[in-house]
């Protein structure tokens, strides 16, 4: 699951499709634009 901490809440996603063609998914677990793959929901202090 991709997570992003924004406005004091965790946002979650299975896929994120970007205008540049990048698609974050379970088969492409790269970080982008604050989104990062975690196997379990991270704590706030884990945010890089």
């Amino acid at each position: 699951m991709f997570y992003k901490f924004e406005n004091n809440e965790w946002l979650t996603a299975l896929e994120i499709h970007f205008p540049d063609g990048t698609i974050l998914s379970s088969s492409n677990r790269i970080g982008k634009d604050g989104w990062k793959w975690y196997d379990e929901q991270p704590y706030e202090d884990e945010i890089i």
Partner: protein
Amino acid sequence: MSKVIDINGSIRTVTYTTGSPADITVNSVSVGSAPSGGSLDIVVNLDGSPSGSWDGDSWEITSDPFPDTTLQVNGTTEGTVASGSTVDIQLSDSGGVVTPTSVTQVGNDFQVVLPDAAAPTGWVRPSGWLALDTVGVGTENFSGLFAVYETQKNVNTIQITTSGVNTINWGDGTTQAVTSSVLYTKVYDYATITSPVLVDEAGLNYKMVVVNINMDNVTVLYIDRNTTATVIGNTRNLGWLDIAVDCSTITTFSPSGQGFSVLLQRLLIYNVGAFINGIPAFIQLAALKVLKFPFEKLQSASQTFTNNLGDCRDENNLPLNLNLTINTVSGANVLSNSHLTELGNITAPLRNSFQTFLFNSILLKKVGNIDASAASNLASTFSQSVKLTGIINVTTSATLTSINNVIGGCFLVDGLIISDCTNVTNTTNAVNGCKNLKTLILTGLTRDITVDDCLMEATEINAFFTSLGIAVGNRTIFIRRNPGSATCDTTIATGKGFTVVIL
């Protein structure tokens, strides 16, 4: 059979027997016989013409299938069905399955006779109520039925601004000549009222008076003012049951703004002056069933009918159409917290805000089209109208900047179409909680929006993406937990510069 032959000059006749004729059968059915050594031509036709071919062990005939059958209802083609299949036509109305009165077949036509629809049952004026005076366009008068209770303080107040000569007939045998802008108070004595005694829904006895006023040159009429007269105390008017008024000069009329006419069941306003203001003059009309109102002359409309407006319809028992053509002074909460179940079209092309217009109308099921072409704000316009269904169709312009919470909490709404969102900057919670939402068209939207947990299939999401404008800056669409989230065509949105988040 015999044959004459010559054997060494001796003529002899020889008799012999030939083979028997052969019986010919087709599919075990005898069709004739052929002489030994002879033949029998059996003609095989399909629909009168020779047909088929020998496939080595049988004569094979293959026919073309009958074409599909076209189904029409009252002459309009509704579709086709495969030849030979069964057609099942379901008859229903909003109440469920309808059993036809009769079905008659004549050739290919089926006459299906449905039961007559029940006539709508509109409000019926209680038979025991006293009749009002005649009021209509041009009569320039007021006539109102007022309840006088056996066990309550029965106070009526009337204040008129006028340049004419006017008289209040209080309905108990007394009258009052009017001085402009003076608040007159009437305390009724139940014992002296001569009308029949009726019993209200709470089981309380009441009598009635009919109050009449000639409305010549009246510009302001208050029939809801509190009185603080020492002998009476701070008392609110509560007794109006039925009101009809016609006055071509009036611009302010307040039957329920300070005191609340919570018993009023019918309000008929035939004519007013060039405009009328409603800030707030018609609130808490919880019992109202019939409303005739010159919406086209409603100028200021802040909280006009807010707080518990009854489930009223027009005098023809049709949903109210709000034709607010001159309503430029906006204000909020025009119909918020109403008990309306159905509303017609809302046409307010000059109104600049629809903020909380129908907010929390928890019984509202249907609303017509909305012309909000001058509106900048649709914030919470329908929010929390939890029974609202159908597709909400709003005509807007580039003036619109906020759709914040526009249908938030409208759990049953099927769709939202806003014709121009090009300059919308606030979409917070626009469709939050709309778990039945299937259609969403926000034409020209360039900003972030969250469309999570709705009921949109991929084709409907694609149509939503198609309606979007070009993203302004880095913009994100959250389209999580919809049936079509995983299969929609995200390139429609990413191609316009949006990031699409799916779950």
